[in-house]
């Protein structure tokens, strides 16, 4: 799906846990997520901390959208 959105001309960032899969399917902007059942969360944290964690990942993703890239790029910590 990532490629089709990109093909339509819209910059897209993929937040996903298994980064090698994202690379294989051809996403250009990739942000690693927390875990498979909760990519943007962590039930072990209290709600406020969890939301802060989610915010950090979303900020990283939005930031990735503002960075010019020429090839597949993983935006790590």
């Amino acid at each position, binding site marked *: 799906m990532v490629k089709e959105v990109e093909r339509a001309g*819209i910059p*897209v960032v993929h937040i996903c846990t298994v980064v090698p899969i994202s690379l294989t399917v051809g996403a250009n902007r990739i942000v690693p997520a927390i875990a498979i059942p909760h990519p*943007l969360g962590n039930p072990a944290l209290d709600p406020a901390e969890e939301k802060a964690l989610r915010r950090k990942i979303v900020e990283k993703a939005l930031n990735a959208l503002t960075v010019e890239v020429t090839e597949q790029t993983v935006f790590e910590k």
Partner: protein
Amino acid sequence: MGKLRIVHYINQFFAGIGGEEKADHKPEVREGALGPGLAIQAGFGGEAEIVATVICGDSYFGENMEEAKAAVLEMVKGYSPDLFIAGPAFNAGRYGVACGAITEAVQAELGIPALTGMYIENPGADMYKKSVYIISTKNSAVGMKDAVAAMVPLAKKLVSKEVIGAPEVEGYLPRGVRKNYFADKRGSERAVDMLLKKLKGEEFETEYPMPDFDRVPPNPAVKDLSKAKIALVTSGGIVPKGNPDHIESSSASKYGKYDIDGVYDLTVDTYATAHGGYDPVYANLDADRVLPVDVLRDMEKEGKIGELHRYFYTTVGNGTAVASSKKFAAEFSKELVADGVDAVILTST
């Protein structure tokens, strides 16, 4: 030579430990054959025995690849097997990636003949078919018998270091290897034969199938987030509670488009996941964990982004055919463009 000693790798489900709720199972090893191992062992007809079965949860492997690989390698090493077999994984994505990764590691680092099996669309297939032999299987465990029937002969050849034939003959996924051979007719004759067939509208077989690169170059970056309209898309199956459009939990035949105008937070009463390929408990309690509406709404209020698009698109990535997800996305991307969306955040589980 006595019986061949095999170590087999399977996931938590085929080991009978549990389903998605046990996908975080750490690597463990048990003596003898388990689950599909019984079929594999039977397939060797007394010539081989599975001396040990290594089990690892699919999510644990996916989230801790390096540690899991290292732990599994240690376990395999301990048995000094003649052969290593992983899976078959069919269309289970995380399982296929794990099987491919561990088969490659055993082959490269322990020098033991190794192979695995999975469906051609399994993400693990594209990732590992170049480095390891992957038997091509059906897309579900219904194909177990056929998978084993193909894995056993190839395994025997790998152990006895026989020449491995072409993919169509041995049943593995093409690895991109080119082998020179002498043909009966010279190239120009074969080319003319092919052209004649093509002109007559007859079937012909190309000697060189073009590889499917299909990479899409990245689009230019967003210049100003504070003015940008951001849309959310997910393969994690987040839907309004009750799944009104009945998106399937696996092999989805459709996608959903839902209106979050006025929605600032996804809650246990209003949204859930339809996805059957991961433990749904966390997403059901708070769907923001897969589709981060709450955080994006905050950022919208603070002016950090221009606007969160009122519609989000969702489907279930579990075993959904590549062609289907391509079709869905091509369709809804047109709407995203028409709606003036500047960028998309796509989340996957």
